[in-house]
């Protein structure tokens, strides 16, 4: 009798558990699903059917083609790629070097530098842009891809923390034996640290890569020229007169998030571990 009661109770718990998972899973996907449904509809279908009615043909790519050309997304993909590659290379080199020095050498100012970066991470980006804009414009960095790239390299803190954390687990005895073998500090950094840091570098590349790819606020401020639009800001094309053609807009949105989806499917594990690693900085 008691056993039965217990079974019933655990059965209810299991049902509730799966019900809640299904419900929140549904909540998570439905906005995107509705976008997918709408992106395949012709304008006529879009106007005459309910939003959740499936499109007549799943092979109607007209909206995607039109969105791609009107928002000049080909150009935007190239710009995003240039920005991403440059920002990633610079911030990996600069970040690992700084982490190496901060982790391996004791010198006056070490803690100060760490605190300067920590404090910087507390400042909300939007507030800072009020005056960063002024600096960018007086340096003539507005409407240049390189200006935006430099700014994006200079406002990164999280990856430095990931690097420092990771380096703490690389034994100092490795450095010491290399020194005994006559290696210079540069050699230690370049030949020992950098290769060992590879997992951390992959993690921060993915996280920062996604961040840079999705960044739209500063890109909209500093890359106003149409030819300089990144993928994220190319979506601004749909603000205004085209603002109610959601079949077109949804197609544009889906094109923009396709690369993120692919990266996510391939690097799921690294992304999860990166999220966890970036969070324990406190």
């Amino acid at each position: 009798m008691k056993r039965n009661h217990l079974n019933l109770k655990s059965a209810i718990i299991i049902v509730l558990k799966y019900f809640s998972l299904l419900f929140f899973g549904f909540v998570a996907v439905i906005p995107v699903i509705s976008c997918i449904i709408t992106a395949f509809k012709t304008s006529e279908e879009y106007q005459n059917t309910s939003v959740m009615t499936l499109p007549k043909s799943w092979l109607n790519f007209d909206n995607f083609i039109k969105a791609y050309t009107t928002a000049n997304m080909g150009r935007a993909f190239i710009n995003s790629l240039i920005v991403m590659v440059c920002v990633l290379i610079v911030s990996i080199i600069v970040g690992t070097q700084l982490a190496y020095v901060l982790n391996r050498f004791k010198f006056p100012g070490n803690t100060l530098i760490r605190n300067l970066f920590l404090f910087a991470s507390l400042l909300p980006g939007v507030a800072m842009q009020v005056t960063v804009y002024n600096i960018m414009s007086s340096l003539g960095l507005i409407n240049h891809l390189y200006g935006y790239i430099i700014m994006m390299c200079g406002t990164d803190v999280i990856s430095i923390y990931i690097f420092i954390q990771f380096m703490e687990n690389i034994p100092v005895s490795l450095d010491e034996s290399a020194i005994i073998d006559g290696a210079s500090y540069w050699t230690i950094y370049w030949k020992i640290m950098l290769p060992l840091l590879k997992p951390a570098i992959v993690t921060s590349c993915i996280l920062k890569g996604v961040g840079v790819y999705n960044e739209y606020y500063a890109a909209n401020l500093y890359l106003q020229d149409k030819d300089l639009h990144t993928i994220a800001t190319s979506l601004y094309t749909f603000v205004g007169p085209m603002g109610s053609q959601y079949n077109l807009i949804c197609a544009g949105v889906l094109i923009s998030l396709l690369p993120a989806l692919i990266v996510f499917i391939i690097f799921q594990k690294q992304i999860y571990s990166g999220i966890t690693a970036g969070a324990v900085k406190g």
Partner: protein
Amino acid sequence: MATALGNSKKWIKSRKGQQLLICVGFTVIPLFLLFLFTYLPFGQMVKFSFYKMKYSTPVDKRVFVGWRNYLDVFSRKDCFGALKLSVYYCIGALIQLVLSLYLATVLSFKVKAGNLFKGLMFFPYLISGIAIGFIFKFFYTRGFVFDTLLQTLGINIESLPYWLKDQAVNNWSLVATSVWRYFGQNMVLFIGAIMSVDAELYEAAQLDGANRFQQFKHIILPSIKTIVTLNIILSISGSLSAFEPPYVITGGANGTGTYFVVMNEIAHTSQKVGLASAMAVVLLMLIFGVTILQKLFFKYVFRNVDK
């Protein structure tokens, strides 16, 4: 041990020059960038907050106005008053925290298709803010996705409000998008923390007859309290600086303009750089204050736990 230490000391001494070179060489660029894009603008922000100026105003034409901008921040209805919207975002953040803790606990144990659920819930985090803006404008438009879903549940569309226009609900609508975007990311964070707990602890507890809730309360919660605390701190300062949902979805119309949306408008559209700087300074002070208070508070709450 002592000789090893002595040895390495000797080595370092003989390499002092090289060491200096590498320390300077490796820190100069990041520090320069940090100065240029964080501390210089920070200094300028404080300075500009005492001036009446536009971005284009030449340096000698800027008018010093003393505390005028600060008085404006507190007296203008659209500035400081906008902070009351933070309450919505704060409540949203707490709901998000509880929800993601629950889901993380469920998904940390053996669940069918657990990875699929995790992936589906996490993916919104990887969508750009501007794309989210479009997705939810579409989602909330009268007669579109959300209304259709509710209609299939048998709710009459006449009884539904305009989700983005009606001031009784529009802030909640925006907060919901923020929860939608971040709950999966929070969940992944918590799963990571829960997974780092020794699995034997759960087994032992199960053998002792502890149920899931007891396990949660006595094993999971204590071991992830640091990360939960950190998240509470982040969510409060985060709600003070709430920006993206209204910026990309409503543009701050119909009473959804949070403090930063108003500030952004004042800075980049009206070009009242002085006033915007003062607003930024006020909020930064507020965030520091809140952060310090919270740190002290949690230190006090956890003072016995760490022993």
